[in-house]
């Protein structure tokens, strides 16, 4: 067993920032991460970090833009914290040596980004995330913070009081990928989850293979609700074979979308007569899929993004990195042929319910970064708002877990205050499979003493692994691809009741199939078969909760579109969706959004640009 004051799970932007903050506040902190820190997907972010740094800009304007972008599903205390603290955090990164792009006078550059009323996006070329990740990892090295890398966290050690809000998190159980050792990590102060996105729930995504939503699923099974999971951002221009993102820049410079018949469909089929290719992400994504569904896609799968008419000179000058991406990952030459593109999952707005300090309803359990939902993005994230979220809330969670007083939080967590249980009948059985293999289920630990809770959890996980290794059965890859397929077919940018219901049926079947899952690689050394099998369990839990929310929320808000009700319905739906595991019987409930900020109330307005 290992012991530290604070354990940070995950070492992307959010985890690194949290660890640094916890150490600054005096804690003995360690990071446990399934990838070496520099392998985290924060490195893939290109665009930039929003921060109101300059004269003429203000955190208030940034907050206004963010609330509007969120379609009024952001919570003002979290949004305002983000916008107020982002400037200081960005300058801290600069002081740590981050190589930002510069102005003539040597100051950090800023550029315009969609949905922002001021050019406030700071960046480092087309590799902002890479630079941010490495800069923070450098600080972790400098400070000698302990990193357990290539340790996969399997479960949280949480006590088992009836009411999740009375439970305490005492540590985590992790599997050493190199050696197969399973061990407990006792955290006397707190555990911070910073496990990133969950793109692997879909079969086509800009997310990494490791983005399986582990933290979200672990917190969920321990009793923390998942919040607003139905809000998934899809990006309209990703390469079909890998999901690599082709940035908005191409369309910004004048790139044109064509269908198989050579029609400029954004105009010719009337999807966006004014904005054409420059319409918002969700509009373009739906247009592309409609073309494919109506038989005008290329190879029944994608459309073409053509930039040849811009001319070689301009392309090389402005879009050179796109040429490399298309060539390296799709084998396409953007100078001589159109590039194939299709919509792909990009970002999860929802996640582990937290307050504005990153705390969950379970004592000693925190979450920050893409896995968390405070919520700053509500129904739709603005470009450049995720990276500041990592550093602002990573830091807050780190401080809080290390015992620093951040004052009373305004955002309630767990079933407190004004909540309402959903009256929606799901026609399918949900949650734990009855009479399921005890090893595959996560019952609560019986003990309350921290060490005892941890050792009981370690034992359960050992048994689970032992069962998976010993028995014969199905391969997880088959189950995972079933989940991904139904999610992509039915819970995509197009969402309609029959499809969503079908998805829940498919997911149920996949869950039942998981009862017979087995690991065929008998090795204890670097057994990725086993790791992927454990991840698939998380993918299943998330897919189900996400679909539940998508089915219940019969309106069109932000990134969530419903065929049956294509308007934003403030009267009924100005509220967060929450799904609680409820010891194996998932329950859907709602809580109001907080629109009252420090100095003003954000009145819902039409989201038009």
């Amino acid at each position, binding site marked *: 067993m290992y012991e530290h004051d604070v354990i940070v799970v995950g070492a992307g932007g959010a985890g690194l920032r949290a660890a640094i903050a916890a150490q600054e506040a005096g804690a003995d902190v360690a990071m446990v991460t399934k*990838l*070496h820190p*520099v*392998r985290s*997907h924060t*490195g893939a972010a290109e665009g930039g970090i929003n921060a109101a*740094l300059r004269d003429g800009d203000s955190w208030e304007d940034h907050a206004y833009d963010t609330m509007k972008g969120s379609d009024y599903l952001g919570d003002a205390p979290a949004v305002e914290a983000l916008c107020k603290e982002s*400037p*200081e955090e960005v*300058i801290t990164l600069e*002081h*740590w*040596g981050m*190589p*930002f*792009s*510069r102005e003539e006078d*040597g*100051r*950090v550059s800023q550029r315009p980004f969609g949905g922002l009323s001021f050019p406030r996006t700071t960046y*480092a070329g087309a*590799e902002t995330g*890479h630079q941010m990740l490495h800069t923070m990892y*450098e600080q972790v090295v*400098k400070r000698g913070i302990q990193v357990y890398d290539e340790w996969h966290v399997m479960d949280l050690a949480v006590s088992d009081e009836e009411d999740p809000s009375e439970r305490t998190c005492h540590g985590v159980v992790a599997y050493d990928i190199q*050696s*197969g*050792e*399973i061990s407990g990590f006792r955290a006397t102060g707190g555990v911070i989850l910073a496990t990133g996105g969950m793109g692997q729930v879909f079969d086509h995504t800009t997310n*990494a*293979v490791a983005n399986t939503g582990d933290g979200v699923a672990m917190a969920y099974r321990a009793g923390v609700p998942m919040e607003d999971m139905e809000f998934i951002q899809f990006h309209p221009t990703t*390469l*079909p*074979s*890998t*999901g*690599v993102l082709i940035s908005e820049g191409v369309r910004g410079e004048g790139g044109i979308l064509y269908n198989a018949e050579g029609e400029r469909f954004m105009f010719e089929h009337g999807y966006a007569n004014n904005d054409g290719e420059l319409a918002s992400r969700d509009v373009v994504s739906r247009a592309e899929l409609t073309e494919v569904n109506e038989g005008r896609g290329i190879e029944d799968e994608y459309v073409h993004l053509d930039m040849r008419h811009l001319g070689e000179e301009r392309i090389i000058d402005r879009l050179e990195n796109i040429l490399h*991406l298309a060539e*390296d*990952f*799709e*084998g396409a030459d953007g100078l001589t042929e159109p590039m194939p593109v299709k919509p792909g999952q990009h970002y999860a707005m929802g996640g582990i319910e937290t307050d504005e300090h990153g705390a969950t309803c379970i004592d000693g359990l925190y979450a920050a970064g893409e896995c968390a939902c405070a919520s700053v993005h509500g129904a739709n994230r603005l470009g450049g708002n995720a990276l500041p979220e990592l550093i602002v809330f990573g830091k807050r969670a780190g401080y809080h877990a290390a015992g620093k007083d951040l004052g009373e939080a305004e955002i309630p967590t767990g079933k407190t205050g004004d909540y309402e249980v959903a009256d929606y009948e799901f026609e399918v059985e949900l949650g734990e499979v009855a009479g399921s293999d005890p090893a595959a289920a996560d019952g609560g630990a019986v003990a309350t003493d921290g060490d005892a809770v941890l050792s009981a959890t370690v034992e359960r996980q050992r048994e689970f692994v*032992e069962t998976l*290794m*010993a028995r*014969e059965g199905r*391969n*997880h*890859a088959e189950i995972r691809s079933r989940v991904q397929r139904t999610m992509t077919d039915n819970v995509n940018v197009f969402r309609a009741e029959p499809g969503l219901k079908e998805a829940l049926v498919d997911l149920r079947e996949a869950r039942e199939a998981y009862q017979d899952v087995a*690991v*065929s*690689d*008998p*090795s*204890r*050394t*670097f*057994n*990725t*078969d086993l790791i992927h099998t454990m991840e698939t369990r998380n993918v299943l839990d998330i897919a189900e909760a996400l679909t539940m929310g998508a089915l219940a929320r019969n309106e069109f808000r932000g990134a969530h579109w419903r065929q049956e009700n294509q308007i934003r319905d403030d009267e009924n739906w100005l509220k967060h969706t929450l799904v609680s595991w409820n010891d194996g019987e998932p329950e859907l409930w709602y809580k109001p959004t907080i629109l009252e900020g420090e100095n003003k109330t954000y009145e819902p307005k039409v989201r038009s640009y």
Partner: protein
Amino acid sequence: MSTQVPKQTDESSENATDAETTVPSKGDARREEKRRRAAERREERQAEEAERAAAAEDTVELKVFRYDPEVEGKQEPRFDTFHVPFEKGMTVLDALMYSRDTYDSSLTFRHSCRQAICGSDAMFVNGTQHLACKTQISELSEPIRVEPLPHAEVTKDLVVDMEHFYDQMHAVEPYFQTNELPDGELDEQRQTRENREKVKMSTRCIWCAACMSSCNIAAGDNEYLGPAAINKAYRFAMDEREGEEIKQKRLEIIEQEHGVWRCQTQFSCTVVCPKDIPLTEHIQELKREAVKSNLKFW
């Protein structure tokens, strides 16, 4: 043999006992049985594959290095053949993932981002260091030979032990240092565009270790810092925000016995770097800087 497999005898038995104690086993016999069956299944699959390959036209043939210190039949390194249906745009990583998910779930390699930014999947493809995710199948001759990075210890299949590489990276004080920060909390340090441009390429390193693996000097001198670590030192030494005093300290670090002077400008690192970092040039420039600063102190 292009790869170094750790000494087998004692290490593998040590691993095996480790595993027994960490995960208490309910039945060794059962596990043995399972291993045997896994081996059988593998043979069956390979037979099926051969048939499939004969039937299908557009497939590519991969020969993949296999090794596992504790699994019977894999303790002796061998090559397995996989036939993968070809699709336009397919990368070596795609082909490996297909092979794993379709034929043999024990096929092991690191990968995550699939877009040449996480640096997980540098390997030895047809005799050169490549990032698997950034290498188009269509550009390779068949059969495609895929091996772990040479000059590193093989953990299993295509996975190598990265600890030594990380140690070298950490040895150059790989973090920004300065003695003077602006007073105001919201004041940034100034940096000219030219200076940022100067360090730009050096900041693109993704720690993939391809360069280290390609370097003859590193192969012969285990303590040599290696191209990536020296490049990391360059990244800071050339950053005007750090100041002269710290630059001197950095030059001392890279001038040590196993530092820049070991480099014999063979350019192998520069050739294989997937991020196009002009490593040899950076090393040469540091040598010149070191000479210059030594002259100053005479």
